[in-house]
Protein backbone atom coordinates (compact mmCIF):
# COMPACT_ATOMS: atom_id res chain seq x y z
CA UNK A 1 0.00 0.00 0.00
CA UNK A 2 1.72 3.21 -1.15
CA UNK A 3 2.32 6.00 1.34
CA UNK A 4 0.91 9.42 0.61
CA UNK A 5 2.86 12.62 1.29
CA UNK A 6 0.49 13.25 4.20
CA UNK A 7 1.36 9.92 5.75
CA UNK A 8 5.04 10.68 5.38
CA UNK A 9 4.39 14.00 7.13
CA UNK A 10 2.45 12.28 9.90
CA UNK A 11 5.13 9.70 10.67
CA UNK A 12 7.89 12.32 10.40
CA UNK A 13 6.06 14.35 13.03
CA UNK A 14 5.59 11.29 15.24
CA UNK A 15 9.32 10.56 14.87
CA UNK A 16 10.20 14.24 15.46
CA UNK A 17 12.19 14.56 12.25
CA UNK A 18 11.80 17.75 10.24
CA UNK A 19 11.45 17.10 6.52
CA UNK A 20 11.32 19.77 3.84
CA UNK A 21 8.85 19.38 0.97
CA UNK A 22 11.49 17.98 -1.43
CA UNK A 23 12.62 15.62 1.33
CA UNK A 24 9.07 14.42 1.81
CA UNK A 25 8.80 13.64 -1.87
CA UNK A 26 12.14 11.79 -1.87
CA UNK A 27 11.28 9.90 1.31
CA UNK A 28 7.93 8.91 -0.14
CA UNK A 29 9.61 7.30 -3.15
CA UNK A 30 12.23 5.47 -1.13
CA UNK A 31 9.82 4.31 1.54
CA UNK A 32 7.44 2.99 -1.06
CA UNK A 33 10.26 1.03 -2.69
CA UNK A 34 11.12 -0.47 0.68
CA UNK A 35 7.49 -1.23 1.40
CA UNK A 36 7.43 -3.01 -1.95
CA UNK A 37 9.99 -5.38 -0.42
CA UNK A 38 8.17 -5.60 2.89
CA UNK A 39 4.79 -6.32 1.28
CA UNK A 40 6.06 -9.83 0.49
CA UNK A 41 5.28 -10.63 4.12
CA UNK A 42 1.58 -10.39 3.49
CA UNK A 43 1.58 -13.43 1.24
CA UNK A 44 2.86 -15.76 3.96
CA UNK A 45 0.38 -17.91 5.83
CA UNK A 46 1.11 -17.38 9.51
CA UNK A 47 -2.16 -18.55 10.98
CA UNK A 48 -1.59 -20.11 14.38
CA UNK A 49 2.02 -18.94 14.60
CA UNK A 50 2.90 -17.09 17.80
CA UNK A 51 4.82 -13.84 17.26
CA UNK A 52 8.46 -14.10 18.30
CA UNK A 53 9.69 -10.92 19.92
CA UNK A 54 12.92 -12.26 21.36
CA UNK A 55 15.50 -14.73 20.15
CA UNK A 56 14.73 -17.74 22.31
CA UNK A 57 11.97 -18.23 24.85
CA UNK A 58 13.75 -17.35 28.07
CA UNK A 59 12.23 -15.21 30.80
CA UNK A 60 13.58 -12.11 32.50
CA UNK A 61 16.31 -12.31 35.09
CA UNK A 62 15.48 -9.97 37.97
CA UNK A 63 17.73 -7.84 40.11
CA UNK A 64 17.52 -7.50 43.88
CA UNK A 65 16.11 -4.26 45.26
CA UNK A 66 19.36 -2.57 46.24
CA UNK A 67 20.79 0.90 45.69
CA UNK A 68 23.93 0.38 43.61
CA UNK A 69 24.41 3.79 42.05
CA UNK A 70 25.90 6.95 43.48
CA UNK A 71 25.68 10.53 42.27
CA UNK A 72 27.46 11.07 38.93
CA UNK A 73 25.62 14.22 37.93
CA UNK A 74 28.74 16.23 37.24
CA UNK A 75 30.20 13.58 34.96
CA UNK A 76 26.92 13.00 33.13
CA UNK A 77 26.16 16.68 32.70
CA UNK A 78 29.62 17.46 31.36
CA UNK A 79 28.35 16.23 27.96
CA UNK A 80 24.94 17.92 28.15
CA UNK A 81 24.02 20.68 25.67
CA UNK A 82 22.53 23.05 28.27
CA UNK A 83 22.41 22.70 32.06
CA UNK A 84 21.84 25.14 34.88
CA UNK A 85 21.76 24.51 38.62
CA UNK A 86 21.88 20.79 38.00
CA UNK A 87 18.89 20.81 35.66
CA UNK A 88 18.77 20.01 31.96
CA UNK A 89 17.33 23.05 30.21
CA UNK A 90 14.90 22.77 27.30
CA UNK A 91 12.58 25.19 25.53
CA UNK A 92 9.62 25.84 27.78
CA UNK A 93 7.33 22.87 28.32
CA UNK A 94 3.65 23.77 27.97
CA UNK A 95 1.13 21.49 29.66
Amino acid at each position, binding site marked *: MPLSPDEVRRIALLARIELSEPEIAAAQGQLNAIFGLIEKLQAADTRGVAPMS*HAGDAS*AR*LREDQVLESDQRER*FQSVAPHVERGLYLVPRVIE
Partner: protein
Amino acid sequence: MEWETVIGLETHAQLSTVSKIFSGASTAFGAAPNTQACGVDIALPGVLPVINRGAVERAIRFGLAANGKRADNICRRSVFARKNYFYPDLPKGYQISQYELPIVSGGSVSIVTRSGEKIIRLTRAHLEEDAGKSLHEDFQGMSGIDLNRAGTPLLEIVSEPDMRSAEEAVAYAKALHALVRWIGICDGNMQEGSFRCDANVSVRRPGGPLGTRREIKNLNSFRFLQQAIEYEVQWQIDVIEGGGTIGQATVLFDADSGKTREMRSKEDAHDYRYFPDPDLLPLEVSDVWIDEVRAAIGELPGERKKRFQESMALSEYDAGVLTNDRETGDYFEGVIGASLASGEARDRADFKLCANWVINEVLAKRNADNLPPWQFAVSDDTLGYMLGLLRNGDISARTTKDLFAEFWEASRAKKFSVQGGSKSMVDELIASRGLKQVSDTAEIESIIDQVLLANPKSVEEFRAGREKAFNALVGQAMKATKGKGNPATINGILRRRLGA
Protein backbone atom coordinates in the same frame (compact mmCIF):
# COMPACT_ATOMS: atom_id res chain seq x y z
CA MET B 1 -33.51 16.21 33.65
CA GLU B 2 -31.83 13.24 35.29
CA TRP B 3 -28.15 12.53 34.68
CA GLU B 4 -26.04 9.65 35.85
CA THR B 5 -22.32 10.10 36.46
CA VAL B 6 -19.93 7.31 35.49
CA ILE B 7 -16.43 7.37 36.96
CA GLY B 8 -13.44 5.10 36.64
CA LEU B 9 -10.15 5.78 38.35
CA GLU B 10 -6.58 5.13 37.27
CA THR B 11 -4.38 5.35 40.32
CA HIS B 12 -0.61 5.53 40.34
CA ALA B 13 0.85 4.12 43.54
CA GLN B 14 4.57 4.64 43.90
CA LEU B 15 6.02 1.37 45.14
CA SER B 16 8.09 1.43 48.31
CA THR B 17 11.28 -0.05 46.89
CA VAL B 18 14.64 1.49 47.81
CA SER B 19 15.87 1.39 44.21
CA LYS B 20 14.23 2.16 40.88
CA ILE B 21 12.28 -0.30 38.78
CA PHE B 22 14.96 -0.74 36.12
CA SER B 23 18.11 0.69 37.71
CA GLY B 24 20.06 0.68 40.95
CA ALA B 25 19.52 4.39 41.65
CA SER B 26 17.88 5.43 44.92
CA THR B 27 14.19 6.35 45.05
CA ALA B 28 14.55 8.54 48.15
CA PHE B 29 12.49 11.71 47.91
CA GLY B 30 13.91 15.21 47.95
CA ALA B 31 17.50 14.83 46.70
CA ALA B 32 19.21 17.63 44.76
CA PRO B 33 18.16 17.63 41.07
CA ASN B 34 19.57 14.81 38.94
CA THR B 35 21.75 13.40 41.72
CA GLN B 36 19.64 10.25 41.82
CA ALA B 37 19.48 9.81 38.07
CA CYS B 38 21.96 7.14 36.97
CA GLY B 39 22.97 6.23 33.43
CA VAL B 40 19.89 4.07 32.92
CA ASP B 41 17.59 6.80 34.24
CA ILE B 42 19.01 9.49 31.97
CA ALA B 43 19.05 7.00 29.08
CA LEU B 44 22.70 7.19 28.16
CA PRO B 45 23.41 5.45 24.86
CA GLY B 46 23.92 1.72 25.43
CA VAL B 47 22.38 1.31 28.88
CA LEU B 48 19.80 -1.40 29.56
CA PRO B 49 16.95 -1.92 32.03
CA VAL B 50 16.92 -4.79 34.53
CA ILE B 51 13.68 -5.47 36.44
CA ASN B 52 13.66 -4.90 40.20
CA ARG B 53 12.41 -8.03 42.02
CA GLY B 54 11.07 -5.86 44.86
CA ALA B 55 8.72 -4.01 42.52
CA VAL B 56 7.36 -7.26 41.10
CA GLU B 57 6.92 -8.70 44.60
CA ARG B 58 4.84 -5.66 45.61
CA ALA B 59 2.64 -5.99 42.54
CA ILE B 60 1.99 -9.63 43.45
CA ARG B 61 1.18 -8.57 47.01
CA PHE B 62 -1.36 -6.10 45.70
CA GLY B 63 -2.91 -8.64 43.34
CA LEU B 64 -3.41 -11.10 46.19
CA ALA B 65 -4.70 -8.46 48.61
CA ALA B 66 -7.29 -7.20 46.12
CA ASN B 67 -8.48 -10.71 45.39
CA GLY B 68 -9.03 -12.34 48.78
CA LYS B 69 -5.48 -13.77 48.54
CA ARG B 70 -6.42 -15.90 45.54
CA ALA B 71 -3.88 -15.81 42.71
CA ASP B 72 -6.14 -16.33 39.71
CA ASN B 73 -5.75 -12.64 38.83
CA ILE B 74 -1.95 -12.80 38.71
CA CYS B 75 -0.45 -13.29 35.28
CA ARG B 76 2.27 -15.94 35.36
CA ARG B 77 3.91 -14.43 32.27
CA SER B 78 3.51 -10.71 31.79
CA VAL B 79 5.18 -8.46 29.25
CA PHE B 80 6.77 -5.02 29.43
CA ALA B 81 6.07 -2.82 26.43
CA ARG B 82 7.34 0.53 25.25
CA LYS B 83 4.98 3.46 25.07
CA ASN B 84 6.62 5.84 22.63
CA TYR B 85 6.31 9.61 22.85
CA PHE B 86 8.65 12.57 23.08
CA TYR B 87 8.69 14.63 26.23
CA PRO B 88 11.68 16.18 27.99
CA ASP B 89 10.93 14.39 31.26
CA LEU B 90 10.91 11.04 29.42
CA PRO B 91 14.59 10.44 28.70
CA LYS B 92 14.36 7.35 26.50
CA GLY B 93 11.55 8.76 24.37
CA TYR B 94 9.44 5.87 25.61
CA GLN B 95 8.00 4.76 28.90
CA ILE B 96 8.40 1.10 29.85
CA SER B 97 4.96 -0.05 30.94
CA GLN B 98 2.95 -3.24 30.87
CA TYR B 99 0.35 -2.99 28.15
CA GLU B 100 -1.28 -6.06 26.65
CA LEU B 101 -0.27 -8.47 29.41
CA PRO B 102 -0.30 -6.77 32.84
CA ILE B 103 0.84 -8.60 35.96
CA VAL B 104 -2.57 -8.24 37.66
CA SER B 105 -5.95 -8.63 35.92
CA GLY B 106 -9.05 -8.31 38.07
CA GLY B 107 -9.71 -8.04 41.78
CA SER B 108 -11.88 -5.62 43.70
CA VAL B 109 -12.03 -3.08 46.50
CA SER B 110 -14.98 -2.64 48.83
CA ILE B 111 -16.13 0.84 49.80
CA VAL B 112 -18.63 2.13 52.35
CA THR B 113 -20.61 5.30 51.72
CA ARG B 114 -23.80 6.75 53.19
CA SER B 115 -25.74 4.36 50.97
CA GLY B 116 -23.90 1.32 52.32
CA GLU B 117 -21.27 -1.08 51.08
CA LYS B 118 -20.33 -1.38 47.40
CA ILE B 119 -17.79 -3.43 45.49
CA ILE B 120 -15.63 -1.58 42.95
CA ARG B 121 -14.11 -3.97 40.43
CA LEU B 122 -10.52 -3.60 39.30
CA THR B 123 -9.73 -4.01 35.62
CA ARG B 124 -6.01 -4.45 36.07
CA ALA B 125 -2.87 -3.33 37.82
CA HIS B 126 0.36 -3.03 35.92
CA LEU B 127 3.97 -2.11 36.58
CA GLU B 128 5.55 0.89 34.93
CA GLU B 129 8.19 3.54 35.44
CA ASP B 130 7.56 7.12 36.47
CA ALA B 131 8.81 10.07 34.41
CA GLY B 132 11.00 12.91 35.63
CA LYS B 133 9.80 16.40 36.46
CA SER B 134 9.71 19.58 34.42
CA LEU B 135 10.24 22.72 36.47
CA HIS B 136 8.79 25.83 34.96
CA GLU B 137 10.42 28.45 37.12
CA ASP B 138 12.31 31.12 35.36
CA PHE B 139 15.29 29.81 33.46
CA GLN B 140 15.28 32.60 30.86
CA GLY B 141 12.01 31.27 29.51
CA MET B 142 13.17 27.65 29.51
CA SER B 143 12.10 24.66 31.57
CA GLY B 144 14.46 22.72 33.81
CA ILE B 145 14.38 18.92 33.82
CA ASP B 146 15.03 16.90 36.96
CA LEU B 147 15.23 13.15 36.34
CA ASN B 148 15.48 11.97 39.95
CA ARG B 149 11.94 10.63 39.77
CA ALA B 150 12.48 9.01 36.36
CA GLY B 151 12.37 5.24 36.73
CA THR B 152 10.60 5.21 40.09
CA PRO B 153 8.41 2.10 40.18
CA LEU B 154 4.68 2.66 39.88
CA LEU B 155 1.76 0.30 40.09
CA GLU B 156 -1.04 1.70 37.96
CA ILE B 157 -4.31 0.39 39.34
CA VAL B 158 -7.22 0.73 36.93
CA SER B 159 -10.80 0.42 38.17
CA GLU B 160 -13.85 -0.45 36.18
CA PRO B 161 -16.20 2.54 35.65
CA ASP B 162 -18.18 1.40 38.67
CA MET B 163 -18.48 4.67 40.57
CA ARG B 164 -21.53 6.87 40.27
CA SER B 165 -20.60 9.94 42.28
CA ALA B 166 -17.66 11.98 43.48
CA GLU B 167 -18.40 10.61 46.95
CA GLU B 168 -17.97 7.04 45.72
CA ALA B 169 -14.82 7.96 43.83
CA VAL B 170 -13.31 9.47 46.96
CA ALA B 171 -14.38 6.49 49.06
CA TYR B 172 -12.74 4.19 46.53
CA ALA B 173 -9.55 6.25 46.43
CA LYS B 174 -9.42 6.23 50.23
CA ALA B 175 -10.03 2.50 50.44
CA LEU B 176 -7.33 1.84 47.86
CA HIS B 177 -4.99 4.22 49.64
CA ALA B 178 -5.58 2.37 52.91
CA LEU B 179 -5.04 -1.00 51.21
CA VAL B 180 -1.72 -0.15 49.52
CA ARG B 181 -0.48 1.28 52.79
CA TRP B 182 -1.84 -1.68 54.75
CA ILE B 183 0.12 -4.18 52.69
CA GLY B 184 3.17 -1.91 52.77
CA ILE B 185 3.67 -1.48 49.02
CA CYS B 186 3.31 2.32 49.01
CA ASP B 187 3.86 4.99 51.65
CA GLY B 188 0.72 6.78 50.48
CA ASN B 189 2.30 10.21 50.83
CA MET B 190 0.09 12.28 48.58
CA GLN B 191 1.98 15.55 49.02
CA GLU B 192 5.07 13.89 47.59
CA GLY B 193 3.05 12.37 44.78
CA SER B 194 3.36 8.78 45.97
CA PHE B 195 -0.34 8.21 45.39
CA ARG B 196 -2.16 10.10 42.65
CA CYS B 197 -5.31 9.58 40.65
CA ASP B 198 -6.56 10.18 37.14
CA ALA B 199 -10.35 10.21 36.93
CA ASN B 200 -12.27 9.23 33.81
CA VAL B 201 -15.57 11.03 34.00
CA SER B 202 -18.64 10.91 31.79
CA VAL B 203 -22.35 11.52 32.19
CA ARG B 204 -25.33 9.72 30.64
CA ARG B 205 -29.05 9.23 30.91
CA PRO B 206 -29.72 6.55 33.53
CA GLY B 207 -29.66 3.22 31.71
CA GLY B 208 -28.53 4.87 28.47
CA PRO B 209 -25.30 4.28 26.56
CA LEU B 210 -22.03 5.56 28.09
CA GLY B 211 -21.19 9.17 27.35
CA THR B 212 -17.85 10.38 26.02
CA ARG B 213 -15.35 10.57 28.85
CA ARG B 214 -12.80 13.17 29.75
CA GLU B 215 -9.77 12.21 31.80
CA ILE B 216 -8.75 14.48 34.68
CA LYS B 217 -5.03 14.02 35.24
CA ASN B 218 -2.89 13.97 38.35
CA LEU B 219 -5.20 14.57 41.29
CA ASN B 220 -3.03 14.35 44.37
CA SER B 221 -5.51 14.89 47.20
CA PHE B 222 -8.90 13.46 48.05
CA ARG B 223 -10.29 16.98 48.26
CA PHE B 224 -9.10 17.86 44.74
CA LEU B 225 -10.48 14.55 43.48
CA GLN B 226 -13.88 15.45 44.89
CA GLN B 227 -13.82 19.06 43.65
CA ALA B 228 -12.51 18.17 40.21
CA ILE B 229 -15.12 15.49 39.60
CA GLU B 230 -17.95 17.67 40.87
CA TYR B 231 -16.86 20.55 38.64
CA GLU B 232 -16.31 18.30 35.63
CA VAL B 233 -19.70 16.57 35.98
CA GLN B 234 -21.54 19.88 36.15
CA TRP B 235 -19.51 21.22 33.22
CA GLN B 236 -20.38 18.20 31.08
CA ILE B 237 -24.08 18.42 31.98
CA ASP B 238 -24.10 22.14 31.16
CA VAL B 239 -22.43 21.54 27.81
CA ILE B 240 -24.88 18.80 26.82
CA GLU B 241 -27.94 20.63 28.09
CA GLY B 242 -26.72 23.70 26.22
CA GLY B 243 -26.87 21.65 23.01
CA GLY B 244 -23.15 20.88 22.82
CA THR B 245 -21.29 17.58 22.74
CA ILE B 246 -18.39 16.31 24.81
CA GLY B 247 -15.14 15.55 23.01
CA GLN B 248 -12.70 13.03 24.39
CA ALA B 249 -9.95 14.98 26.14
CA THR B 250 -7.31 15.01 28.79
CA VAL B 251 -7.84 17.80 31.29
CA LEU B 252 -6.04 19.30 34.24
CA PHE B 253 -7.64 20.50 37.47
CA ASP B 254 -6.63 23.94 38.63
CA ALA B 255 -7.00 23.98 42.40
CA ASP B 256 -7.00 27.77 42.57
CA SER B 257 -9.92 28.32 40.23
CA GLY B 258 -11.57 24.97 41.03
CA LYS B 259 -11.96 24.37 37.29
CA THR B 260 -10.76 21.80 34.79
CA ARG B 261 -9.08 22.76 31.51
CA GLU B 262 -7.87 20.85 28.49
CA MET B 263 -4.17 20.03 28.20
CA ARG B 264 -2.40 21.55 25.26
CA SER B 265 0.77 19.55 25.03
CA LYS B 266 -0.28 16.06 24.04
CA GLU B 267 -2.53 16.67 21.08
CA ASP B 268 -0.41 14.73 18.60
CA ALA B 269 0.75 12.06 20.97
CA HIS B 270 -2.12 9.65 20.74
CA ASP B 271 -0.23 7.15 18.63
CA TYR B 272 2.01 5.59 21.26
CA ARG B 273 3.27 2.75 19.04
CA TYR B 274 3.30 0.20 21.84
CA PHE B 275 5.41 -2.88 21.23
CA PRO B 276 7.07 -5.44 23.52
CA ASP B 277 10.31 -4.05 24.93
CA PRO B 278 13.06 -6.06 23.23
CA ASP B 279 15.43 -5.28 26.13
CA LEU B 280 13.22 -7.12 28.60
CA LEU B 281 12.29 -10.76 28.34
CA PRO B 282 8.81 -11.75 29.58
CA LEU B 283 8.35 -11.52 33.34
CA GLU B 284 7.61 -14.93 34.84
CA VAL B 285 6.06 -15.36 38.26
CA SER B 286 6.15 -18.85 39.75
CA ASP B 287 3.53 -20.39 42.03
CA VAL B 288 6.22 -20.85 44.65
CA TRP B 289 6.93 -17.14 44.63
CA ILE B 290 3.24 -16.29 44.89
CA ASP B 291 2.90 -18.66 47.87
CA GLU B 292 5.82 -16.98 49.60
CA VAL B 293 4.30 -13.55 49.07
CA ARG B 294 0.90 -14.75 50.27
CA ALA B 295 2.40 -16.21 53.43
CA ALA B 296 4.06 -12.90 54.24
CA ILE B 297 1.03 -10.65 53.67
CA GLY B 298 -0.58 -11.33 57.04
CA GLU B 299 -4.08 -10.29 57.96
CA LEU B 300 -5.92 -8.11 55.46
CA PRO B 301 -8.33 -5.32 56.47
CA GLY B 302 -11.44 -7.40 55.80
CA GLU B 303 -10.09 -10.32 57.77
CA ARG B 304 -9.19 -8.13 60.69
CA LYS B 305 -12.57 -6.42 60.69
CA LYS B 306 -14.25 -9.80 60.82
CA ARG B 307 -12.05 -10.89 63.69
CA PHE B 308 -12.81 -7.72 65.65
CA GLN B 309 -16.52 -8.33 65.16
CA GLU B 310 -16.44 -12.03 65.95
CA SER B 311 -13.90 -12.45 68.71
CA MET B 312 -14.28 -9.04 70.37
CA ALA B 313 -17.99 -8.60 69.75
CA LEU B 314 -17.45 -5.11 68.34
CA SER B 315 -20.15 -3.58 66.21
CA GLU B 316 -19.62 -3.51 62.44
CA TYR B 317 -19.20 0.25 62.63
CA ASP B 318 -16.54 0.11 65.34
CA ALA B 319 -14.68 -2.76 63.63
CA GLY B 320 -14.81 -0.84 60.37
CA VAL B 321 -13.40 2.35 61.82
CA LEU B 322 -10.66 0.47 63.64
CA THR B 323 -9.54 -1.27 60.44
CA ASN B 324 -9.58 1.74 58.15
CA ASP B 325 -5.85 1.65 58.21
CA ARG B 326 -3.36 -0.83 59.53
CA GLU B 327 -1.88 1.53 62.13
CA THR B 328 -5.21 2.21 63.82
CA GLY B 329 -5.92 -1.51 64.14
CA ASP B 330 -2.41 -2.16 65.44
CA TYR B 331 -2.82 0.71 67.90
CA PHE B 332 -6.17 -0.59 69.10
CA GLU B 333 -4.74 -4.05 69.70
CA GLY B 334 -1.78 -2.49 71.47
CA VAL B 335 -4.11 -0.58 73.78
CA ILE B 336 -6.01 -3.75 74.63
CA GLY B 337 -2.77 -5.60 75.37
CA ALA B 338 -1.47 -2.84 77.66
CA SER B 339 -4.78 -2.38 79.48
CA LEU B 340 -4.69 -5.87 80.84
CA ALA B 341 -2.10 -7.35 83.13
CA SER B 342 -0.67 -10.54 81.69
CA GLY B 343 -2.86 -13.59 82.08
CA GLU B 344 -5.93 -11.53 82.85
CA ALA B 345 -9.06 -12.58 81.01
CA ARG B 346 -10.55 -10.08 78.55
CA ASP B 347 -14.20 -9.56 78.28
CA ARG B 348 -16.55 -7.68 76.02
CA ALA B 349 -16.57 -4.66 78.29
CA ASP B 350 -12.79 -4.34 78.04
CA PHE B 351 -12.85 -4.46 74.25
CA LYS B 352 -15.71 -2.01 74.11
CA LEU B 353 -13.97 0.36 76.53
CA CYS B 354 -10.77 0.33 74.44
CA ALA B 355 -12.68 0.66 71.16
CA ASN B 356 -14.65 3.63 72.47
CA TRP B 357 -11.51 5.31 73.66
CA VAL B 358 -9.61 4.80 70.42
CA ILE B 359 -12.52 5.90 68.26
CA ASN B 360 -13.91 8.77 70.35
CA GLU B 361 -10.77 10.19 71.87
CA VAL B 362 -7.70 9.11 69.92
CA LEU B 363 -9.01 9.23 66.35
CA ALA B 364 -10.90 12.43 67.10
CA LYS B 365 -7.67 14.04 68.24
CA ARG B 366 -5.65 12.58 65.38
CA ASN B 367 -8.14 13.97 62.89
CA ALA B 368 -8.45 17.30 64.65
CA ASP B 369 -4.67 17.67 64.58
CA ASN B 370 -4.55 16.52 60.96
CA LEU B 371 -2.01 13.83 61.73
CA PRO B 372 -1.18 11.01 59.34
CA PRO B 373 -2.52 7.57 60.28
CA TRP B 374 0.78 6.39 61.68
CA GLN B 375 1.11 9.25 64.15
CA PHE B 376 -0.29 8.75 67.65
CA ALA B 377 0.88 11.37 70.14
CA VAL B 378 0.11 9.04 73.04
CA SER B 379 1.46 5.55 72.59
CA ASP B 380 -0.77 2.50 72.73
CA ASP B 381 1.15 1.32 75.79
CA THR B 382 0.55 4.54 77.69
CA LEU B 383 -3.13 4.77 76.85
CA GLY B 384 -3.64 1.07 77.58
CA TYR B 385 -2.06 1.54 80.98
CA MET B 386 -4.36 4.48 81.75
CA LEU B 387 -7.39 2.45 80.71
CA GLY B 388 -6.24 -0.42 82.93
CA LEU B 389 -6.15 1.99 85.87
CA LEU B 390 -9.59 3.28 84.94
CA ARG B 391 -11.00 -0.21 84.71
CA ASN B 392 -9.59 -1.14 88.11
CA GLY B 393 -11.08 1.98 89.62
CA ASP B 394 -7.69 3.50 90.41
CA ILE B 395 -8.52 6.67 88.53
CA SER B 396 -11.80 8.18 87.50
CA ALA B 397 -13.05 8.54 83.94
CA ARG B 398 -12.68 12.29 84.28
CA THR B 399 -9.08 11.93 85.43
CA THR B 400 -8.36 9.56 82.55
CA LYS B 401 -9.68 12.00 80.00
CA ASP B 402 -7.75 14.88 81.46
CA LEU B 403 -4.58 12.84 81.69
CA PHE B 404 -4.90 11.66 78.10
CA ALA B 405 -5.51 15.16 76.82
CA GLU B 406 -2.56 16.50 78.76
CA PHE B 407 -0.27 13.74 77.52
CA TRP B 408 -1.38 14.27 73.93
CA GLU B 409 -0.67 17.98 73.99
CA ALA B 410 2.64 17.61 75.80
CA SER B 411 3.77 14.94 73.39
CA ARG B 412 2.71 17.03 70.39
CA ALA B 413 4.71 19.91 71.85
CA LYS B 414 7.66 17.49 72.11
CA LYS B 415 7.92 17.99 75.85
CA PHE B 416 8.42 14.29 76.50
CA SER B 417 11.71 12.51 76.65
CA VAL B 418 9.85 9.34 75.70
CA GLN B 419 7.72 9.96 72.61
CA GLY B 420 4.13 9.00 73.39
CA GLY B 421 4.63 8.97 77.16
CA SER B 422 5.23 5.96 79.41
CA LYS B 423 3.69 4.06 82.26
CA SER B 424 6.04 5.55 84.81
CA MET B 425 5.16 9.06 83.62
CA VAL B 426 1.48 8.23 84.21
CA ASP B 427 2.25 6.88 87.66
CA GLU B 428 4.33 9.93 88.59
CA LEU B 429 1.65 12.38 87.57
CA ILE B 430 -1.09 10.50 89.44
CA ALA B 431 1.08 10.36 92.56
CA SER B 432 2.27 13.97 92.44
CA ARG B 433 -1.24 15.32 91.94
CA GLY B 434 -2.89 12.81 94.22
CA LEU B 435 -5.28 11.64 91.55
CA LYS B 436 -5.57 8.11 92.77
CA GLN B 437 -9.08 7.08 93.76
CA VAL B 438 -9.73 5.50 97.12
CA SER B 439 -11.14 2.09 96.40
CA ASP B 440 -10.07 0.51 99.67
CA THR B 441 -13.37 -0.88 101.03
CA ALA B 442 -12.39 -0.71 104.71
CA GLU B 443 -11.38 2.95 104.43
CA ILE B 444 -14.56 3.87 102.58
CA GLU B 445 -16.72 1.87 105.02
CA SER B 446 -15.38 3.84 107.95
CA ILE B 447 -15.90 7.12 106.10
CA ILE B 448 -19.48 6.12 105.31
CA ASP B 449 -20.09 5.21 108.93
CA GLN B 450 -19.15 8.78 109.84
CA VAL B 451 -21.27 10.27 107.05
CA LEU B 452 -24.34 8.28 108.14
CA LEU B 453 -23.87 9.37 111.72
CA ALA B 454 -23.47 13.00 110.73
CA ASN B 455 -26.49 13.11 108.39
CA PRO B 456 -29.41 11.38 110.09
CA LYS B 457 -31.87 13.64 108.27
CA SER B 458 -30.82 12.52 104.84
CA VAL B 459 -30.90 8.87 105.96
CA GLU B 460 -34.44 9.33 107.15
CA GLU B 461 -35.54 11.05 103.95
CA PHE B 462 -33.98 8.29 101.84
CA ARG B 463 -35.79 5.63 103.83
CA ALA B 464 -38.97 7.61 103.25
CA GLY B 465 -38.39 7.03 99.52
CA ARG B 466 -36.60 10.20 98.39
CA GLU B 467 -33.85 9.10 95.99
CA LYS B 468 -32.38 12.60 95.96
CA ALA B 469 -31.30 12.11 99.57
CA PHE B 470 -29.12 9.20 98.45
CA ASN B 471 -27.22 11.46 96.09
CA ALA B 472 -26.67 13.93 98.91
CA LEU B 473 -25.14 11.16 101.00
CA VAL B 474 -22.85 10.13 98.12
CA GLY B 475 -21.82 13.75 97.75
CA GLN B 476 -20.96 13.92 101.46
CA ALA B 477 -18.92 10.72 101.21
CA MET B 478 -17.07 12.03 98.16
CA LYS B 479 -16.38 15.23 100.01
CA ALA B 480 -15.05 13.26 102.95
CA THR B 481 -12.63 11.41 100.61
CA LYS B 482 -11.60 14.76 99.13
CA GLY B 483 -13.00 13.64 95.80
CA LYS B 484 -10.78 10.60 95.53
CA GLY B 485 -13.28 7.99 96.53
CA ASN B 486 -14.25 5.58 93.84
CA PRO B 487 -17.87 6.55 93.15
CA ALA B 488 -18.84 2.98 92.31
CA THR B 489 -17.41 1.67 95.59
CA ILE B 490 -19.11 4.42 97.60
CA ASN B 491 -22.40 3.76 95.88
CA GLY B 492 -22.26 0.05 96.55
CA ILE B 493 -21.37 0.30 100.23
CA LEU B 494 -23.89 3.04 100.90
CA ARG B 495 -26.73 1.06 99.36
CA ARG B 496 -25.76 -2.01 101.35
CA ARG B 497 -25.66 -0.02 104.58
CA LEU B 498 -29.01 1.57 103.92
CA GLY B 499 -30.40 -1.83 103.14
CA ALA B 500 -31.59 -0.60 99.76
